[in-house]
């Protein structure tokens, strides 16, 4: 990989030359970790141009390029990856089929999914359905609030036995179908499994979905197109299975330096082990993770990565690094799954300011707020000051609810 990248990928040749590294200097894993510099999404964006919108990390000859995909762009401007002619086939066989088999998808099923060919994950899903012989049921448009009634109609009319989508969409389907007088269990009657992606799924949220829809299980796909890493969890729900024949992963400190121990939180660094598409070599991601090499309850021996959140959603309070994932776990204990946003956490001293969907407060919002403050102090070492708000005051950007907002003067 290193030799190929040096000879064929302008991005790496230029960076490694600058760092005084040649391909022949890398002979051991230790050489790889110590000498190959990491890079970030911003480094890649700076190299993106009309000549090569991928920034110079595509590992296939230009004439072999067949399609592009974009990232979600939730942390800013989208980046692009280039896909060569055989890359998708290899990815399907060595990654995607494994994923969806774990997540209960089978040939002959009918799956609800809105095709999203702009995103790599969407492309992979489209092709899995084609190759697996799964009928796709789709609503019109895209996964956005105003299309929820259409999704309800599609599920009600065509009765899929599998659902692929985003966590907040599932929450909205439950809410809006109930508001329309259709019990969520009736809406999802016949749906055996769900596979969701895009946001972390807490234990409380999974329980809510299973209890209220009647599905057998909800699988979570986690990862990032940036770095092209990821995987699904299995029935044990103890982290995402990352295929070690596809990805070499490291977990480093929050400043991007020094490897952290197994079971400790840090930032993920990924290296792809296949050619023909984007080739990330020591890409320093923006995801906060924890990795384990212990065999999973399901019997699989590949490593597992638990995803906490994006780095941008983490903050230090009282000397402790916390994420919105930690705050979600506390809120769920008192209110069940709900949408919330943490406001200016870096300025917090004794209490975090948190805006929560007011519908979750019930008739005794004051006592719920007091309970949250108490729970938060006990679990996180910092209290919570709750502001009950209308859902419209919780920012929604690029199809995801924003969970941490800064510089909010209101």
């Amino acid at each position, binding site marked *: 990989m290193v030799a190929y990248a040096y000879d064929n990928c302008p991005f790496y040749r230029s960076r490694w030359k600058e760092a005084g590294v040649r391909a022949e200097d890398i002979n051991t894993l230790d050489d790889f970790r110590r000498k190959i510099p990491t890079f970030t999404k911003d480094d890649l964006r700076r190299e993106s141009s009309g000549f090569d919108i991928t920034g110079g990390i595509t590992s296939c000859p230009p004439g072999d390029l*067949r399609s592009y995909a974009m990232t979600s762009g939730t942390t800013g401007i989208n980046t692009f990856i280039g896909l060569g002619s055989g890359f998708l086939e290899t990815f399907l066989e060595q990654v995607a089929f494994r994923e969806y088999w774990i997540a209960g998808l089978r040939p002959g099923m009918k799956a609800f*999914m809105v095709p999203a060919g702009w995103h790599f994950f969407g492309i992979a899903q*489209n092709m899995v359905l*084609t190759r697996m012989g799964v009928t*796709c049921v789709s609503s*019109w*448009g895209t996964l956005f609030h105003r299309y929820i009634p259409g999704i309800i109609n*599609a599920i009600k009319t065509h009765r899929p036995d599998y659902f692929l989508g985003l966590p907040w969409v599932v929450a909205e389907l439950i809410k809006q179908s109930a508001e329309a007088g259709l019990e969520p269990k009736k809406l999802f009657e016949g749906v055996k499994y769900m596979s969701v992606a895009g946001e972390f799924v807490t234990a409380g949220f999974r329980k809510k979905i299973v209890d209220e829809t009647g599905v057998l299980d909800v699988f979570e796909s986690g990862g990032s197109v940036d770095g092209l890493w990821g995987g699904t969890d299995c029935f044990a729900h103890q982290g995402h299975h990352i295929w070690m024949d596809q990805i070499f992963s490291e977990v480093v400190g929050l400043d991007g330096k020094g490897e952290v121990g197994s079971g400790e939180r840090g930032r993920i660094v990924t290296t792809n082990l296949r050619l023909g598409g984007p080739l990330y070599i020591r890409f320093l991601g923006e995801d906060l993770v924890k990795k384990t090499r212990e065999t999973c309850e399901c019997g699989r021996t590949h490593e597992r990565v638990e995803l906490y959140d994006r780095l941008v959603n983490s903050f230090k309070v009282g000397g402790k690094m916390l994420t919105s994932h930690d705050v979600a776990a506390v809120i769920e204990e008192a209110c069940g799954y709900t949408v919330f946003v943490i406001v200016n956490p870096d300025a917090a001293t004794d209490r975090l300011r948190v805006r929560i969907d007011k519908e979750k407060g019930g008739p005794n919002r004051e006592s719920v707020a007091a309970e949250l403050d108490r729970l938060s102090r006990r679990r996180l070492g910092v209290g919570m000051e709750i502001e009950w708000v209308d859902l419209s005051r919780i920012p929604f950007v690029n199809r995801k609810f924003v969970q941490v907002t800064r510089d909010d003067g209101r």
Partner: protein
Amino acid sequence: MTESEDSPALIVQTEQWEEGDSPYLSLTSRDLSNLADVMADLLASVGVKAKDRVLIYDFNTSISTLAMSRVFTPGLSEGVCERLECIAICTDGLSELAARSAYTFGLWQPEVLLIRSELASPFLAKLQGRSLQEADPNLRTVVAIHNDVVAWPRQIGLGPGRFEKRILCRVDPALFMCLVKPCGGIYYPRGRYRVDLDPESGTRLRVAPAFSPGRGTLVSNLEATAGGKDCGCGEGHEFVTEAPGF
């Protein structure tokens, strides 16, 4: 794992599902392949060729987008991109994503832009005061996508430029797609559809997909007259409609 060409691969809701007579299209792999043939023919007729970059600012669920590539569409093994060897990026069809689409347009400099007609204005607004041609000197062809069930666009507002301009009119329940030239001349792949004027109204196009006979015949909203009219472009047209305002 094998796929049958005759069982539904994709069941997709149409755009006006609430009011429409055919709220869903059930599409076999064969239907999808035929749609790809139609779309390839339409785009080739405006000069789209191998290595061309095609930016699509429309929903993936639009039949014109579904036809474009196997990576966009469950059940499609070869789309337009695979047939013509062009390459496409679809940025989705939300007006809220105009900035992202404009950014991609400016960076990638595609030869071809397929854009929902109502998105032309928000898209142009994000080009920082530049025209389409100024933002992308490579641009050769712009196709504005129009859904037959909405009113005919009198003015799309693409602005000035050297690029070829067309409207692609979609009549979803009949899987019909045609191009309308600036002169009003209608182009569709002959042999793929049976097309005539509705005898009752005398002015609306009646269409049926020859490749999917079970769908029957549909009277569209596309107002047209029989050919022979001098449209001024020098080509003979079987049917002519109101010249669109680009």
